């Protein structure tokens, strides 16, 4: 008889403990997920013109202004890089707090076309990066951007590249902050950056 009461009490305790344990576990998981959901942390490991591997940690503490393109692109890429150059000029003394990156999505061809000379023609601060095909895919996936080779008889070497044309702003902690869609005037980008620096 006494044992039966004790058994009941133990069972009751178990019945209470299971959802309590479950609830605690759920709370634990919730505490972790939201942060990861809100801001993502793009990453890359790509070669610069001197053959050095560059990663986001190389630029820790700086804002990154990242554009994906290719140097055979006659219209969109020069136009955006010209905007970036204007932004860098406009930043004045704060220019050192921002690192503009041009990531090639046509890396094999661009590596043979003096990428550094190309980016420097717009602004000396712009760093051109061109990895191998796998590294480029990984960087694009991490930034959640799209690019694709398109065969075109009317293009140099018989192909052109379709690509996301926005400019991505990454914070000094490496987290994605926002993107500026193609055609955003330099003045607008400059105003946004000034508020953050």
């Amino acid at each position, binding site marked *: 008889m006494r044992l039966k009461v004790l058994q009941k009490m133990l069972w009751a305790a178990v019945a209470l403990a299971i959802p309590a344990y479950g609830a605690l576990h759920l709370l634990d998981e919730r505490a972790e997920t939201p942060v990861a959901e809100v801001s993502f942390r793009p990453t890359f490991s790509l070669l610069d013109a001197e053959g050095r591997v560059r990663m986001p940690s190389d630029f820790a503490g700086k804002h990154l202004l990242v554009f994906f393109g290719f140097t055979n692109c*006659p219209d969109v890429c020069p136009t955006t890089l010209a905007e970036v150059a204007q932004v860098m000029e406009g930043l004045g003394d704060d220019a050192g707090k921002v690192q503009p990156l041009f990531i090639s999505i046509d890396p094999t061809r661009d590596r043979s*076309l003096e990428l550094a000379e190309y980016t420097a023609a717009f602004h000396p601060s712009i760093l051109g990066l061109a990895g191998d095909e796998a590294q480029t895919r990984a960087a694009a996936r991490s930034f959640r951007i*799209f690019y694709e080779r398109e065969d075109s008889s009317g293009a140099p070497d018989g192909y052109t590249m379709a*690509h996301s044309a*926005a400019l991505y702003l990454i914070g000094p902690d490496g987290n994605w902050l926002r993107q500026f869609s*193609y*055609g955003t005037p330099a003045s607008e980008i400059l105003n946004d950056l000034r508020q953050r620096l």
Partner: protein
Amino acid sequence: MNTMKYLLTALLLSLSATPVLACETVQLSSLEISEAWSRASIGMARPSAFYVTIRNTGVKDDALAGIATPVSGKPMLHETVVKDGVASMPHATAIPVPADSTVQLEPGGYHGMLMGLTQVLKEGETFPLTLTFREAGDVTVPVAIRGMGAKDAGCVDKKD
């Protein structure tokens, strides 16, 4: 006889006139072509772009069907299309120039792509380019070579 003299003088004057500057408007029947410009190139490996403003003051629709220039072995008309944030550059067979309207070949829209450069395009210089219209025919204009970071022809009297 007087008329003859006048015509001869006019002919001589037109021949000795200084080349038309890129910011000046070139007339071809009812088309006014102005602000023809391009970007400087690094070497000759990459294509450059060509931009221009075409105003059709007439009552007849026209279309820019092609471009030709000694600086490019393969000049073509293209249009930059940005869809869902992704830019692509389809070939444009012709660019419509409707009656009583102005069409601009400009960054982010219609443009000429100058492939197979035959010379380095140097900032500050000009090169000739022939535009072929379906109705009005051919006209050759001087194209100003601007810096790589240029966004327009840089003409002082540019109207938007």
